[in-house]
C-alpha cells in the first residue's frame, strides 16, 4: 500500500508544485467568470426575463440575481470538472515523454497500481479544486444574497462534483492513452478549454442550440454534471421564485426556466432525470475504467 500511496502523493505533488498547471486547469472557469462580469449576466438575465410574461413585478429581483449567479457557479464548476482532471492527467504524457515512467516501471510496484495512482491523484485533484471553488463560490453568493440551500443540497453538490471528477478522470485516462507528446496534449487542452464552456452551456444555455447540437453536447458526462449541479444549487431559489408567483401560472414560469437553462439533460429524444444522468455518467465511467484497465495494462506489458 505504501507504494500506491507514495506514487499517488508524487502525482499530486507534481501537479500542485506547478503553478502554471494549476492556473491553466482553472483557465476556463476564470474565463467563464470574466465573461459573466462582462456580459453573460445580462444575457442570462435577458433569457430569464424573456420567459416571465408579466411576472416581472411579482418575482423578487434578488431571486433573479441569485438565480443567474447560481447558473454562473454551475458553469464554473462544470468546466472545472473537465479541465482540472485533464491537466492533472497530462502527467501521464509528460512521464512517458521524459522517461519518468521507465523509472517507475523499474520498481516492484504493480502495473495496476501505477494506473490507479494516476486515476486517484487526478480524481482527488479535480474533487479538491472543484469543491474549493464551490465552497468559495457559495460563501460569496451567500454574502451577496440568500441561495436558500439546505444542507442536503450542499452535500448533494459535493457528491455531484465527486461523480463529475471521477467520470471525467476515467474518460481522460482513455484519451491520454492515445496521446504521445506534450505538444499534442497541450493542443488538445486548448481545444478542450475553448469548447468545454459551450458544451456544458456555461456561455449560452444549451437549449439555445439546435436539437442535434444539444444532443451532442449532452453526450458528455460534464454536461449532465452541470445540469445536476444547477438542480442542487438553484433548488431553493426556484422554490422561492415559485412562492413569489403564488401559483398564479401553475408553475409554468419555473418549468420554462428549467427548460431554458437545461436543468435536465436532453439527448436524442431522451430527457434525463437526476437519477438518469447519474446512471448515464456511471455507465460511461465504468466503460472507460474497464477499457483503460485492459489497455493500460497491455501498453505497459507490450513495451
Amino acid at each position, binding site marked *: 500500500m*505504501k*507504494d500506491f*500511496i*507514495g*506514487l499517488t*502523493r*508524487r502525482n499530486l*505533488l*507534481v501537479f500542485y*508544485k*506547478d503553478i502554471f498547471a494549476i492556473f491553466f486547469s482553472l483557465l476556463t472557469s476564470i474565463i467563464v467568470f470574466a465573461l459573466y462580469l462582462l456580459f453573460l449576466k445580462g444575457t442570462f438575465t435577458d433569457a430569464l426575463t424573456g420567459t416571465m410574461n408579466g411576472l416581472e413585478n411579482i418575482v423578487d429581483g434578488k431571486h433573479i440575481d441569485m438565480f443567474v449567479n447560481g447558473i454562473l457557479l454551475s458553469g464554473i464548476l462544470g468546466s472545472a470538472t473537465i479541465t482540472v482532471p485533464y491537466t492533472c492527467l497530462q502527467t501521464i504524457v509528460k512521464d512517458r515523454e*521524459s*522517461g*519518468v515512467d*521507465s*523509472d*517507475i*516501471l*523499474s*520498481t*516492484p*510496484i504493480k502495473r495496476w497500481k501505477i494506473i490507479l495512482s494516476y486515476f486517484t491523484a487526478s480524481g482527488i485533484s479535480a474533487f479538491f479544486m472543484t469543491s474549493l471553488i464551490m465552497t468559495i463560490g457559495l460563501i460569496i453568493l451567500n454574502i451577496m444574497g440568500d441561495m436558500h440551500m439546505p444542507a442536503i443540497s450542499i452535500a448533494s453538490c459535493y457528491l455531484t462534483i465527486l461523480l463529475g471528477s471521477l467520470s471525467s478522470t476515467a474518460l481522460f485516462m482513455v484519451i491520454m492513452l492515445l496521446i504521445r507528446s506534450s505538444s499534442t496534449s497541450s493542443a488538445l487542452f486548448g481545444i478542450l478549454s475553448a469548447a468545454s464552456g459551450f458544451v456544458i452551456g456555461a456561455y449560452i444555455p444549451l437549449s439555445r442550440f439546435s436539437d442535434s447540437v444539444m444532443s451532442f453536447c449532452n453526450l458528455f458526462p460534464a454536461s449532465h454534471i452541470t445540469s445536476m449541479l444547477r438542480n442542487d444549487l438553484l433548488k431553493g431559489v426556484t422554490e422561492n421564485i415559485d412562492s413569489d408567483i403564488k401559483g398564479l401560472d401553475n408553475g409554468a414560469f419555473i418549468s420554462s426556466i428549467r427548460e431554458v437553462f437545461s436543468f435536465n439533460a436532453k439527448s436524442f429524444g431522451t430527457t434525463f432525470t437526476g437519477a438518469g444522468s447519474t446512471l448515464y455518467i456511471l455507465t460511461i465511467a465504468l466503460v472507460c475504467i474497464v477499457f483503460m484497465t485492459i489497455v493500460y495494462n497491455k501498453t505497459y*506489458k*507490450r*513495451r
Partner: protein
Amino acid sequence: MKIIEVKDLTKKYKEQTAVDSISFDVEEGELFAFLGENGAGKSTTINMLTTILQKTSGTAFVAGYELGKEDDGIRKVNGIVFQNSVLDKGLSVKDNLISRGSYYGLSKKEIQNRLEPFAESFEMREIWNRRYDKLSGGQRRRVDIMRALINQPKILFLDEPTTGLDPTSRKLVWDYINYLRKEQKMTIFLTTHYMEETRDADNVVILDKGHIVSQGTPAELKSSYAHSRLIWYTPENAEAETLISTISNVFSYDADHYNIQTDRILTDFIYEHKEYIRDYEYIKGTMDDVFLNLTGKELA
C-alpha cells in the same frame, strides 16, 4: 559467482533488431562495461535486464531471478541510473527520493535511514530541500545515484552516467562508483562510449549494431586488438628507417617524428640505441584502438 547470465538475448521492433542474440555473464562484485556508440543496443540491453522492456527472445537470469518470469524479484535487486535524468524537476531532492523509495514499499523513516550513510560522502545535506531543476549537472547526477541506491540494490546499472558532465563532476561520479564497488562490494553494470571509463573494468563487452563483437578484460582486448606505438622525434632519414625496420615493418613519418607500430617490449632496443634515440614516447595500445579495430569506428 555469476550474478547476471544472459544467453541469446534479443530485442526486435517490427523490422528492426536492436539487440541480436547476445550472450554474456557478469560476476558478482565486478565492474562490467558495455562499450558501444549510440544506437549500438546498450540502453536496450539495460532496459531489458531491468524489466522496463520486454525481451523478444533469449534467456537471462539476474541475481538468480529469471527475466520475464520473476520480474518482481529482479526489480527489487536492481538500481538504475538512467542516461537522462528521470526525477521530477519541479520537486525537491527530498520529495523525489522519498517518493521513489515508497515504490519499494519503504516508509519515509526507512528511506532516510538508508540514505544517511551516503549523506556526507555524497554531499547531500546541503541540497536536500532544493528543487531538482535548480541543481548543477554534477549534483543532479549524485541525486540520480542516490535514487538508484534507495532499495539497496545488488546490481547498479549505470547507463552512460557521465555523459554531458564537466570533468570535475565526472571525477566525482567516478569516485562514488568506485566507493560503491570497493566499499559496498556492489556489482556495477556500466554502459559508456567513453573509452577511458572502461580502463578499470573487470570485463568489457563491445557492442556494435546490436551484436557483441568482442568481450574480455581490457588487457585481453588490448593485447588482441590494439598495438603499442613508439613515437621517435628525429629528422626523416634512411639510417633511422633501417634501424626501425629491425623492430617493425609498420611505420610512417608525420611532421617531425616517426610513428612506429609495434607490440614488442622496446626497453632493450631503446637502451641499446640510446645515443641515437634521444627524444621519444612509448604509447601503449588503448581501448580506442581496440574499438577502432573491431568496429572500424571511432568513439568520442
